[in-house]
């Protein structure tokens, strides 16, 4: 494929799933109107959900999901050794995601509740970056296919990609939403990184922060604003802890 007369490189990509719902890799085969072009721009060498190709020769490894078992640690470490570029795909890979709720409980209790009389060997949940070096994080529950496409194009052209630094409010306002906080709902929009185009708040559900913190979020002001509007500390903490994306402030 050519761009402005120059032959573009076609990166070999592999997609691997870890502890997750596999919804992010499903996103990769969504957006049918550009799916053929997307698949033509890359060479998929390993993608269990969408392809029978199985190769260990890849340039970019996309890791979906968090790490919660010893065999996952071994598999991830091996992938890191082979991949030139390792990308954490989705909120679970970037932050641990909803899986991290597990870390709030006693290990023996969760093992009993989930596996009953057949306990399994399991670990505290970690993000991909807590186990191996990550070159790029693409947050979102699920990831936005638009954003993944843009990143892939930047990789192919060798141009730097930047995520929006601003919070969700910008895109929410640009879609003419009546502010949910003004309507009495809790919303993490003011502290969460934009780029998703605010589908949840536009749809009437306050933001749950799946994309993680915006750049330099003003937590103190956010806590004052939510308290002032009658939301309890517990409600705010529970919302912020749901995806494990706000540990930078919740652990401080």
């Amino acid at each position: 494929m050519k761009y402005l007369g120059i032959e573009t490189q076609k990166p070999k990509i592999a997609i691997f799933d870890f502890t997750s719902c596999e919804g992010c890799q499903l996103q990769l085969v969504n957006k049918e109107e550009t799916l053929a072009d997307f698949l033509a721009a890359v060479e998929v060498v390993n993608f269990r959900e969408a392809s029978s190709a199985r190769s260990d020769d890849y340039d970019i490894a996309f890791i979906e999901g968090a790490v919660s078992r010893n065999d996952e640690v071994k598999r991830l470490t091996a992938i890191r050794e082979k991949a030139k570029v390792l990308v954490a795909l989705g909120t679970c890979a970037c932050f641990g995601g909803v899986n991290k709720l597990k870390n709030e409980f006693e290990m023996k209790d969760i093992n009993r509740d989930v596996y009953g009389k057949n306990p399994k060997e399991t670990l505290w949940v970690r993000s991909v970056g807590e186990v191996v070096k990550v070159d790029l994080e693409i947050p979102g529950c699920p990831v936005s296919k638009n954003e993944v496409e843009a990143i892939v194009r930047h990789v192919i052209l060798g141009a730097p990609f930047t995520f929006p630094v601003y919070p969700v409010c910008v895109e929410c306002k640009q879609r003419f939403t009546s502010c949910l906080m003004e309507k009495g709902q809790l919303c993490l929009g003011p502290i969460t990184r934009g780029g998703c185009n605010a589908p949840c708040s536009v749809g009437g559900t306050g933001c749950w922060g799946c994309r993680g913190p915006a750049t330099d979020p003003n937590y103190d002001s956010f806590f004052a604003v939510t308290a002032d509007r009658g939301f309890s500390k517990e409600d705010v903490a529970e919302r912020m802890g749901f995806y494990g994306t706000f540990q930078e402030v919740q652990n401080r």
Partner: protein
Amino acid sequence: MLYKTIDKEDLKNLIDVHLHDVECIGPRQVGTNAKGRPLYQFLPVSSFDDMDLDYDTTEYSAKTYFLPYKEVLSTFHFDDSGWTQDITYRKHPRIIVGLHRCDINGLVKLDKVFAKEFHPNPYYLSRRGNTLIIGIGCHKHCEGGFCSSIGSDSVTHGFDLFLTDIGDRYFVKVGSDRGFNALNKINVRDISDEDRNQYLSNRNNFESSFKKTVKVENLPNLLDIEFESEVWKKWGDKCMSCGSCAMVCPTCYCYGVTENLSMDFKKSEKTKQLYSCNLYDFAQVAGGHNFRPARETRLKYRYYHQHRGFVETFGQPMCVGCNRCSRVCLAGINPTEVIRDIQMEHGR
């Protein structure tokens, strides 16, 4: 200026019958806030009755119909022999009904920036030129509005027709030829003494009920002197840098431009997105240096553009006192209080 009167019923005729083919934008209720206050927005309407011309204010200004949040500036097509560029301007006619004085003054200010004689902005010109503005005088306070303090409580131009409610009829200021032509499609009368007296009495009532809440006369100089004031830190600490103030503002026009390549690498769009000076990377430059990494600095510069820089260039503030920024701000940052704080700092 030419003045006429029309029956209220005839305004409905004008919109629903004579201008039926033209896209019409007007104030529509979209819901209520937590306190039960109705929320309005300027939205497309299919008939006159969809509008509520008695609205107090809208959440968003009508700026978006002239400066959309996102606008494709040009499209590029690539092939083996090179590339071609396409530029299209929005030419479809539109009517906006129900703009208040503040919002029309906002457009007049945007005209100074984008419709100036030398090097006007063609995207803005095309939208502005193809939009018929039918304004209407508000007669009750919107929450916290300070138009009368900042000199935007009267309007002399920037509209095609401007209506004042005088009972069963409208007192109409005609602002343009096309406004005059539109008016001639319906029953229109010359004004009588009674019409004029009723208009003047309404205007007097309006002026006496709208109190000045903040002094802005010497503000550009005060802002200069108070560059290092602690007041900026006080309000900056509250600011969540969410940009909502700029999004709802009728005059904030700052933007960024991005190039977006299509997935088949055959097409690219140069897209403009309205931005806000309160956002973290607004003053970040190539190489990564950020001239305004602190919230208080970014907040300060928004006030500097609105109340100092614009005044130096155009002899009037950019702010029209609609107070939308204050109503949308979750952190309660309120321009009249910020300005009063700056004045207190100076002991006045």
